[in-house]
């Protein structure tokens, strides 16, 4: 059902290094870890480290400037040592982070796991309760709480943890839902493991990454929130805390504004460390991606495959004319020595390797090969629709003798639809769920020619009728989720042939369909091909389809063409071992059965 995994460049290749090592390898995360370790140590051993008791008052040192007296970072408005107070306030900050994060995590993880794994009534109820919690204005509820007698900071942080728990809940629930249907969870269930064990061992292990990341951000949020509450005067005034020191300094704003720096720095650095740690964890666990600018990408492609590859990959105005070397080709489509690859670790990882093939006017060519053999990537390269990180390293693609590679995207867009067209494999994912079928068809028509809306609509309706849709007007107004898969595929065929293209690429157009619909869609394709006299490149792994409709066949394996010729030639005298193997694996009594089938009759698999 899913698209072929033919784009290795999209997969993040993570070396099997431990998360820890990758984390420490990143200088920012390493610095953050060291800093946080120091903060925790200070919190534990504060009374030994602080030069003075935090409440010691020396009136002569009131608002004394930093670095000039025994008060290293200066004195506050009551004549107390700011450094000692910040050290004393560390414990509260660290504690509040730990309390809030652990409360939010325990609640969110427990309920998220249960809701995601067991679903049903519990899921509905939990979902609802957490959505209410999400709508509750946390700070205001805390204000309400503070009117109660003697609310200590730990209690307040625990409440804040409850208020923050929906974020954890929704994350864990979604992750668990995704994991629950994985095969290894099924396997564990079949193997007779108890639910508790499956959830505790297998599910939790699989989803721990994002939770750890969230925990770092939660700690940061907690420290910020507790300091914020102390800053607005809530909390125990007798105990020094970063928030209350900030508040004292704020009251002194017009006398000694520098006093804001120290508590601000303590808070800011700690939060920055937690955020950097969270980001570092994310990069280490999930991999990071910064989209390169065009200039960087250009330089990278040049380094990987040379300056000519940049032109082929990104297009340059006027390049196609300069490249038009040998126009004396009689083929409709001529692909020569095409090389497509994805950068991977400083090297180009080829997925299409020296592919050459041709399609003539009115000819149907089958392109066969297993998943990952580069069939689809060849088609995308010929249409200029490769993913952004693909590199067209070498080769040429000519349509009616004119070079296509190197066309800038807007010029390529004029070729697409009107002369080249494409039918995708999976009908549903190829229609935008947010737009009606009709509007998506009209968009194509209006992009190809300056047609009025009314005319475009008339054309789209006519085309829908032509591809065999019974009630075109209704389908036109439908959203993709309102039509069946077979109908969606007909809509996509309509969208492709609407501009009466010379050449049609059909990428496994029947694979995702019901068997009964497959034959109809194939017939429709052949009818349309004859009617418009189109060349058709039919990507498939179904040799029966090839035998039924194709004139010639091209066999690909591991990015290379291993054999090509007329269907009769190739099927009766396959030269390459791989082709023989493919033919041998055709098991039923279709026309595709080759004379090479081994003795003992067809297998009944």
């Amino acid at each position, binding site marked *: 059902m899913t698209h072929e995994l033919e784009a290795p460049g999209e997969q993040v290749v993570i070396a099997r290094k431990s998360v820890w090592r990758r984390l420490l390898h990143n200088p920012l995360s390493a610095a953050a870890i060291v800093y946080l370790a120091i903060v925790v140590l200070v919190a534990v051993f504060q009374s030994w480290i602080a030069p003075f008791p935090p409440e010691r008052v020396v009136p002569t040192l009131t608002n004394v400037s930093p670095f000039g007296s025994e008060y290293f970072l200066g004195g506050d408005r009551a004549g107390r040592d700011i450094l000692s107070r910040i050290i004393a306030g560390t414990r509260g900050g660290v504690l509040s982070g730990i309390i809030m994060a652990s409360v939010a995590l325990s609640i969110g993880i427990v309920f998220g796991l249960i809701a995601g794994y067991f679903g049903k009534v519990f899921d509905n109820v939990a979902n609802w309760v957490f959505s*209410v919690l*999400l*709508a*509750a*204005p*946390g*700070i*205001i*509820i805390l*204000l*309400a709480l*503070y*009117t*109660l007698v003697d609310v200590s900071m730990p209690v307040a942080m625990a409440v804040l943890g409850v208020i923050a728990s929906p974020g954890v809940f929704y994350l864990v629930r979604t992750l668990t839902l995704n994991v629950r249907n994985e095969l290894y969870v099924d396997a564990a269930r079949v193997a007779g493991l108890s639910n508790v064990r499956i959830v505790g061992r297998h599910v939790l292990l699989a989803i721990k990454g994002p939770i750890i990341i969230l925990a770092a951000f939660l700690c*940061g949020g907690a420290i*910020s929130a507790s300091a*914020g509450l102390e*800053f*607005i*005067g809530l909390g125990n005034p007798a105990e020094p805390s970063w928030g209350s020191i*900030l508040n004292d300094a*704020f009251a002194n*704003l017009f006398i000694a*504004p520098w006093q*804001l720096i120290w508590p*601000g720095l303590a808070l*800011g650095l700690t*939060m*920055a460390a937690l*955020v*950097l740690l969270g980001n570092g964890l994310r990069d280490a666990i999930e991999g990071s991606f*910064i*989209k*390169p*600018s065009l*200039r960087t*990408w250009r330089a990278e492609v040049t380094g990987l495959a040379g300056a000519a590859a940049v032109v082929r990959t990104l297009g340059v105005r006027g390049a196609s004319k300069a490249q038009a070397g040998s126009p004396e080709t009689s083929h409709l489509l001529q692909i020569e020595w095409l090389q497509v690859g994805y950068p991977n670790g400083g090297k180009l990882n080829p997925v299409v390797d020296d592919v050459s093939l041709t399609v003539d006017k009115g000819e149907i060519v089958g392109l066969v090969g297993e998943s990952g053999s580069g069939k689809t990537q060849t088609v995308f390269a010929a*249409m200029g629709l490769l*993913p952004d990180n693909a590199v067209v390293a070498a080769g040429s693609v000519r349509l009616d003798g004119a070079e296509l590679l190197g066309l800038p995207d*807007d010029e390529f*867009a*004029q070729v*697409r*639809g*009107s002369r080249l067209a494409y039918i*995708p494999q*999976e009908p549903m*994912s*190829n229609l*935008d*769920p*947010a737009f009606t079928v009709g509007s*998506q068809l009209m*968009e*194509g028509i209006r*992009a*190809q020619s300056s047609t009025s809306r009314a005319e475009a609509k008339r054309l789209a309706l006519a085309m829908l009728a032509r591809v065999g849709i019974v009630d075109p007007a209704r389908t036109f107004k439908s*959203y993709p*989720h309102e039509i069946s898969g077979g109908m969606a595929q007909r809509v996509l065929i309509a969208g*492709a042939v609407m501009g009466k293209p010379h050449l049609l690429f059909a990428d496994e157009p029947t694979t995702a369909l019901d068997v009964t619909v497959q034959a109809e869609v194939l017939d429709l394709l052949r009818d349309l091909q004859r009617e418009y006299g189109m060349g058709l490149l039919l990507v498939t792994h179904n040799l029966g389809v090839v035998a039924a409709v194709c004139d010639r066949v091209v066999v690909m394996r591991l990015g290379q063409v291993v054999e090509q010729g007329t269907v009769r030639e190739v099927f009766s005298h396959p030269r390459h071992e791989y082709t023989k193997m493919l033919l041998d694996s055709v098991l039923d009594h279709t026309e595709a059965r080759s004379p090479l089938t081994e003795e003992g009759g067809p297998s009944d698999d």
Partner: protein
Amino acid sequence: MLVYTIRKLLTGAVVFVSVTALTFFLLFARGGYEIARSFLSDTATPEQINARAEQLGLLRPIPAQYWDWLVELVTGASLGRSYLTNAPVVDVLMNRSPVTISLLVVSLVLTIAMGIPLGVVAATRGGLVDRGLQIFSVTVQAIPNYGLGLILVLVFALGLHLLPATGFVPLSRGFGPWLATIILPSLAIALGSIAFVGAQIRGAMLDLMRQDFVRTLRSRGVSRRSTVFKHALRSAAPPTLTILSLQVIQIVGGSVIVERIYALPGLGSIALSAGNSGDLPVVLGVVAWIVVIIVAVNLIVDVLNGFLNPKARVR
């Protein structure tokens, strides 16, 4: 669509009752005598305190008290009177709302106007903008909004003398003066949201540009620009709206602290002072009013999402 809206309205009503009931319980749990003592003067005798508690109906069971509060709200559009000033709580809220709503609107506008373009450019252009967005995200995440508030006051008000440091001028006295008093606190609240929304939009756009349907549209000759702005942005709209509705809650919470830094007479500051002086009807009124704002925003977002996402409408 109508059924969908009504269902969302009902959910909103249930959320309102749940949150206010919870707050009511938290506020009134310590008993009528304690409550009355906390706002009466220190010289009040136990008999006086008891009489006042009795008079305010504070000695009855909490569910009964909450029920009366709810009935009075529904039938009389009243949230009771302040214990301290005897002013109707609704009037207090109406006096204080312009500030907080100004903060909310201006910071939302800033978030949308800056966060969305930032995310789109980071996703489509990449390079320096993308890296810049990531650095910006880390920076503003590392500085709490009151920290940002303090920095903005120090730089723009005390340092450069460009804008007033404190106070509020209502919109009725002119757009310029109003904006001058509201822009710094709004920015302090919004910077975090801008970075967050930008990062989310960037992720959504990158995901969407890899979607099959985008390639298929392009295969019909539709330009890359049109797929980005019409299809990718449209598909990114529902998650963005949801993020924005969550940001509203953040912004309302953040306003309590920012109002203190900028000495703005808003809902947050009245909640804080009422909380400190034991004026429970005012605290409860603020909670109720803020829940109404949040529920209303969520309702608008849900209805908009219903329009944007054809699948949500059916369910």
